[in-house]
């Protein structure tokens, strides 16, 4: 079973179960429709990293307090920060689908999540090529909302990346990214 399908089924709660034909069809249709509206955009920057103690680190002038992130970035000298989105047209498609077909909308939501992860993988690949090619290792990506890394940090991230202007990703007052199929994350570079 290909990765895309497997991941989508995981989001839908299938675990290790086989997928039924109808759901499989919904998944295929959803990916096809998504493909025609998705407008991928992303932006990233690489910073020098200084870990102060077990809960505080500095990305040049950007300070973050999070034990979990510090642990994730142990032994790293640099970190990449990125923001990415599937665009407003993706949100619009899911919203439209919800009106006439809730089952398909739920499936499409899971497909969009998978698609979002694929974009993040793509960004990681690019960052990996950017980081000096001396066999440097990238840590697993870590987003605000994971562990004790507060959602509020998204604000600073979008600021330093100029994300609203460059890729159209903004933050609501309650720290939700809009368009909703958007992600911000740190990637430690060892």
């Amino acid at each position: 079973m290909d990765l895309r399908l497997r991941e989508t089924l995981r989001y839908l709660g299938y675990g290790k179960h086989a997928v039924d034909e109808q759901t499989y069809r919904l998944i295929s249709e959803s990916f096809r429709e998504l493909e025609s509206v998705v407008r991928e955009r992303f932006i990233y920057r690489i910073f020098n990293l200084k870990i102060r103690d077990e809960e505080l680190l500095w990305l040049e002038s950007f300070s973050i307090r999070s034990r979990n992130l510090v642990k994730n970035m142990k032994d790293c000298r640099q970190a990449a920060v990125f923001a990415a989105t599937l665009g407003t047209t993706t949100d619009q498609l899911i919203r439209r689908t919800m009106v006439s077909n809730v089952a398909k909308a739920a499936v499409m939501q899971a497909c969009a999540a998978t698609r979002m992860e694929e974009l993040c993988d793509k960004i990681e690949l690019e960052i990996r090529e950017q980081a000096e090619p001396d066999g440097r290792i990238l840590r697993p990506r870590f987003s605000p909302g994971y562990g004790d890394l507060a959602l509020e940090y998204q604000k600073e991230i979008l600021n330093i990346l100029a994300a609203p202007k460059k890729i159209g990703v903004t933050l609501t007052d309650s720290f939700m990214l809009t368009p909703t199929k958007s992600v911000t994350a740190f990637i430690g570079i060892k």
Partner: protein
Amino acid sequence: MLKELLGKELLFFDGAMGTLLQEQGLQAGEYPENWNISHPEQVIEIHRRYFAAGSNIVLTNTFGANRIKYENQEYSLREVVYQAVAHVKEGAEKGAAQGRKSFIGLDIGPTGQLLKPLGSLDFEAAYEVFKEVVRYGTEAGADLIHIETMSDTYEVKAAVLAAKENSDLPVTVTMMFDEKGNLLTGGDVASAVALLEGLRVDALGINCGLGPAQMQPLLIEIRRYTDLPVIVNPNAGLPQQRNGQTVYDVDPAEFAGAMAELVKAGAALAGGCCGTTPDHIKMMIKACRELPLLRPADRQRTVVSAYGKAVEIGSIPVIIGERINPTGKSKLKAALKEQNYDYVLKEGIKQQDAGAHILDVNTGLPDIDEAAVLREAVCQLQSITSLPLQIDTADIGAMEAAMRIYNGKPMVNSVNGKQKSMDAVLPLIRKYGGVVVALTLDENGIPETAEGRYAIAARIVNEAAGYGIARKDVVADVLTMTVSSAAESAKVTLKALELVREGLGIQTVLGVSNISFGLPDRPVLNSAFYTMALQNGLSAGIINPLSVEMMASYYAYCALMEKDVNFEQYIRQYGQGAKAEAPPAQEQNMTLYTAIEKGLKEEAYRISGELLKEHQPLYIINTHLIPALDVVGKGFEAGTVFLPQLLMSAEAAKAAFEVLQENMSEHGQTEQAKEKVILATVKGDIHDIGKNIVKVLLENYGFEVLDLGKDVDPEMIVQTAVDQDVRLVGLSALMTTTVGSMETTIKLLRDSKPDCKVMVGGAVLNREYADMIGADFYGKDAMQSVYYAQKLLHDK
């Protein structure tokens, strides 16, 4: 003064401010606007340098000076804007050459937040934010208002309206497109231009995001759609990363050459954005100064637009879908009265899928607040479709409310020849932009002759011209009277169409189906008349796109009259490919139980209809529907049935219910009063798919769901619970930051409606959280909520 020069003389903007401030020591993360107060000399010096380089329009250092973006508490916004304007003035005094025309441009940039429905910022809230800056800047003495770097048509509309309603200064707008000509939020050049032209800005164009070379094709495209002066303020090329810094790769000499090309291609105002310096501007002016201004192209296209999409009404006929209209539709009437917009949205999507290009939206009913309902219908529709809408109402208040929040340039139905109508409607078109449908009737009624109708159309066009509304924005509806009461009706209409097209040169619209009223087999007459009207110059018919006959007329006409290149459309509709997808063989003797269990919507619908021939609805519900749902629900709990299947079964059950309910109401069987449940996603949260899933399931199980939507104020939830005497509220939240709103809502409910129970759900929640915030029940998945509701409200 500036207004007279726009489009007549080549004018020059300034270049970047940010980079120059950074060179002077502006720190990363520091508000550039603060320097108006903390480093006035440096700011004035930058302005002086641009004036000295030859700029006519220099922008104030207020790009982010709006209440949402400028959160600095150190200085007041008012002070910042006032100083900013004063500094440009001083820069002009010190730097501008004698006799050179100099203007202070109030710079307004985006709020940095996305507007509803895609984001959480209210349109009117955005308007207020822009209004504040406009007022300060106008008071302080700016010469024009320049709105720039906008990547969302909705936000730009709020800004332009704020400028036009709170100031008499000229308004210029530049938007930021990508290389393909798309806005970040999905709009394109045609729709952006249609919107801005409709709002009557004084000049429009592009800035940022691209270098001069990349802007050229966009400039050419803009000029295809408008004769307004076009502004180009490109970056100094594309950004490159060098040593962790962003550098722009086009130097002043290269920039100057490229800008000269843009002026030759038709730009009327030129300047620079990121990466440009006074040197870039100086060399640009030197290269461009002697170039002649291209005459504005004479653009007479009739264009309507929505978020992201523009539709031209011209040589290719356009379909306006008529189905969102309560006349003769009892279901829609009921839905609108209950403020349930699902029906409206479904009709919208159906028509879109069937090939409509524009959707008519009419919510005219007695005893409803039409302005509120029409406004909401338009808001909701434009959040799920990018087809332009035709705002169809006789209520001026409703018309204005809808036009104001419409994201784009709408079609407006209608104005007529009565003075009262023209006095009321034409000012709205002037203010908000739109293509107005002109009905050829007046105080004397509907003329019996084609010439009579033509005369009224001519009169309306003239009156519109007095408001500055161009001919291209008026389309005539010469009216279709039924042949059964006046035999020559069809001939009159057809002749009137011709006269209007030839004599006035404007586009036409017609509601076709009236022709056959009172006669049998109306589709036969309607489709024939539609073809005849198309032949006589009908540009846009208001028809039912779900009608096979009407669409056949449309496709055939286009194919025959060379309006369907390579017969692509026709073949797609009628070719072998279209027929090849035969529906899968229906299982004979399938039971309703099985159809629901397997989530087969079409079958469930069909079989319910058949069962009704022999059984009562209640019997069918109790013997087939509920047991099937129960089995599926239990399977979901047990982990053998998964969410998509659960939902497909729910949708199948819903389809079956529709059939049964219709039958019950036909036979006068009133349904038992259903228990009401309120569902809402709490304030600050805009995720709603979980809530919608619970809604579908609750409805299946016989509850009446009052869906309050997302980002709902606690007060609204409580008020509804009190007003409708609701005993169960379901709250959903997906984020840790919004769980607080849940807690507030619950507290408020306890105070005002203590007998109401609260169940909560959402990925971020768990048992502990739920207890902590005082909820009565935590539903870990969709079915849990249903079981709780049943236990609470049904088993008494």
